């Protein structure tokens, strides 16, 4: 690998266009990881200047100030001051400031300048500033700040040309740190006075720079129309997830099955073939099968995020979410939870408050993820008649909807209970910046989607593959004794575990076959269907399984099983991600236990009530 000639760090406020600039500079050559010990994202990329200088770019987390309120800000401050272990002091600080929001961003700029490190200012979004009639005297600004100021337009090809050119020559000297500023304590008021003086001397801002935002917000945040718009947007997103995602999923699952079949045909029967076809290919199909829906959902979330709408949704929902013990910001991760709890738990990083983040992580698995759908589909198809209700509704649809609602209601109840039990009466503020509306750029959408999809795949492939292989092993070994009449799985380790678990689940109306299927469901929920099919020795598709189930257990049992799956402890991969994101086994244990108890009680009540009725 070539030697790094120059290390630069991008610093700036949240929403300053730093990520777009980073994408523009580094293209696809990015590495996303975490800073050691914390869940703050560390983004690094590299590029070569026209003259051949290899530049390493570190994209530091956004910050409002160095008073270090959030973990992100602490990391940024430490890296810039050279205090972060394992992170080399950058040769040059590139401070990214949004030209349309200079008043806010100058404050952090002045704090960064006080560090006395070589720096340049990338005055970003100059095009938007001009369009809004903001007039910035760049030469004068540069003179006042004492550091080079370069114009950039991060969303335009070649928009960082001036910045790249400036990296070719000698680096600018470190700014002189005024002795007064260095000795006096950095009082907030001082900084603001300085900001005001600089703005007054260099920038002319028309009266209302954000008239367009005002017009949109008038509708988007309207007390009545706003929520209606939000509901419509959500409805369309879910429609798209199912309309675009499901056919792709079928296609992928079919292709992987076909490949598995081809590979299987070329192999001799035996344990190795079982492992490869039933273990590895089945596992791969499971992982890849989720990808389309998750990518479609991510795509929409990215569009909403980059356009500036998501914080508006958080604004609209904050009151309701606070009432149940969450925060408006939790809306975004909880939305992804309908696809899968794993990206959702990773997504809780956008919640700066620790308590709010933890509660969101705990309730996220209660949102009905797409893995539960196959289980619901089989049970509903087998037990709920296709009957019209009130002329327009289908009973099956109503039951499915009720299961979703039960999950959401459960999440609200759990969050509320945690809020009540909390001894922590400290304030958990919102203080959320609502950025200007923007049309998302294709490049940023593509990189965002790539990064999230990749993280998901990397996290999951290993875990699910390992678990699927393990499941295959305990279902296949030991093989049935000679002259056995039942399905092979009955004699396996899994069969024994199922029988062992049966008494525990008997009060819920579950027989040993169901108890057995709950074991693979813990690896990945939808495998419960395949497991039931295996036990009842039928193909796991079409009506065969439905008929087998309908003859083998009662409606009360089926209802209890559906309710069990609404609340049941999340899959192992979710627990693994929880552990990673919270760094605590206690959180993992707490979430497993509460969900188990909740699911057990809910399924028990459902079963008993259903029995009384019938």
């Amino acid at each position: 690998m070539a030697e790094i000639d120059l290390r630069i760090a991008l610093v700036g406020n949240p929403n300053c266009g730093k990520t777009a600039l980073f994408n523009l500079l580094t293209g696809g050559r990015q590495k996303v990881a975490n800073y050691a010990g914390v869940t703050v994202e560390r983004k690094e990329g590299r590029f070569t200047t026209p003259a051949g200088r290899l530049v390493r770019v570190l994209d530091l987390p956004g910050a409002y100030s160095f008073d270090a309120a959030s973990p992100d800000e602490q990391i940024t401050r430490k890296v810039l001051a050279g205090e972060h272990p394992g992170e080399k002091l950058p040769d040059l600080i590139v401070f990214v400031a949004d030209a349309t929001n200079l008043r806010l961003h100058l404050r952090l700029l002045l704090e960064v300048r006080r560090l006395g490190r070589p720096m340049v200012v990338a005055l970003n979004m100059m095009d938007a500033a001009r369009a809004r009639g903001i007039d910035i005297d760049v030469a004068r600004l540069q003179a006042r700040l004492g550091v080079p100021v370069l114009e950039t337009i991060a969303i335009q090809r070649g928009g960082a040309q001036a910045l790249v050119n400036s990296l070719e020559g000698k680096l600018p000297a470190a700014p002189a740190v005024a002795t007064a500023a260095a000795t006096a304590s950095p009082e907030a008021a001082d900084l603001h006075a300085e900001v005001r003086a600089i703005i007054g001397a260099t920038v002319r801002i028309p009266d209302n720079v954000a008239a367009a935002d005002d017009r949109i917000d008038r509708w988007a945040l309207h007390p009545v129309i706003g929520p209606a718009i939000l509901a419509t947007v959500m409805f369309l997103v879910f429609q798209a997830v199912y309309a675009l995602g499901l056919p792709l999923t079928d296609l992928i699952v079919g292709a992987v099955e076909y490949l598995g079949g081809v590979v299987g045909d070329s192999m001799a029967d035996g344990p190795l073939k079982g492992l490869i076809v039933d273990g590895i290919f089945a596992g791969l199909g499971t992982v890849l099968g989720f990808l389309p829906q998750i990518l479609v959902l991510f795509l929409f979330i990215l569009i909403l995020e980059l356009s500036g709408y998501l914080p508006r949704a958080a604004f609209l929902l904050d009151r309701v979410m606070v009432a149940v013990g969450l925060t408006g910001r939790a809306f975004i991760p909880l939305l992804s939870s309908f696809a899968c709890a794993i990206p959702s738990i990773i997504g809780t990083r956008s919640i700066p408050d620790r308590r709010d983040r933890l509660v969101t992580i705990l309730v996220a698995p209660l949102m009905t993820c797409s893995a539960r759908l196959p289980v619901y589909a089989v049970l509903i198809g087998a037990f709920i008649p296709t009957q019209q209700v009130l002329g327009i509704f289908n009973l099956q649809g109503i039951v499915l909807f009720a299961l979703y609602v039960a999950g959401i209601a459960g999440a609200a109840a759990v969050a509320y209970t945690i809020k009540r039990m909390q001894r922590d009466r400290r304030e958990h503020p919102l203080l959320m910046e609502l950025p200007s509306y923007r049309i998302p750029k294709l490049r940023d959408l593509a990189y965002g989607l790539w990064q999230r999809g990749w993280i998901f795949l990397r996290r999951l492939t290993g875990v699910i593959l390992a678990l699927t292989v393990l499941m295959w092993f305990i279902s296949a070994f030991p093989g049935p004794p000679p002259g056995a009449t039942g399905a092979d799985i009955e004699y396996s380790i899994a069969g024994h575990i199922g029988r062992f678990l049966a008494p525990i689940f008997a009060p819920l109306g579950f027989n040993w076959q169901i108890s057995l299927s709950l074991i693979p469901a813990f690896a990945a929920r939808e495998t419960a269907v395949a497991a039931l099919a295996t036990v009842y020795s039928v193909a796991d598709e079409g009506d065969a399984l439905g008929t087998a189930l309908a003859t083998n257990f009662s409606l009360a049992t089926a209802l209890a099983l559906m309710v069990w799956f609404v609340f049941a402890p999340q899959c192992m991969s979710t627990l693994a991600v929880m552990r990673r994101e919270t760094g605590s086994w206690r959180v993992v244990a707490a979430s497993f236990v509460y969900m188990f108890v909740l699911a057990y009680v809910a399924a028990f009540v459902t079963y008993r009530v259903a029995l009384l009725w019938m």
Partner: protein
Amino acid sequence: MLLTDLPKGASAIVDRVEQTPKTDMVANRLRDLGFVEGEPVRVVARGRTGAGPILVVIGSTRFALRRAESDRIVVRDAVNHG
């Protein structure tokens, strides 16, 4: 008056940020975000019953503040644009 009580569409000048007796992280953060003496602010949106967060424009930045947060900000010279 308090920023919280400013009607939708009205603007005013920040007078001060009130501090709770102990170290007030929220008040500090508000000042970091630019809520300091002399800055003009404007309320763009508020919830139906006034219980939800309010949307405040300061400079050219928009912030969503909950009541507990906006209650800390004392404003003067309120002008109602109707």
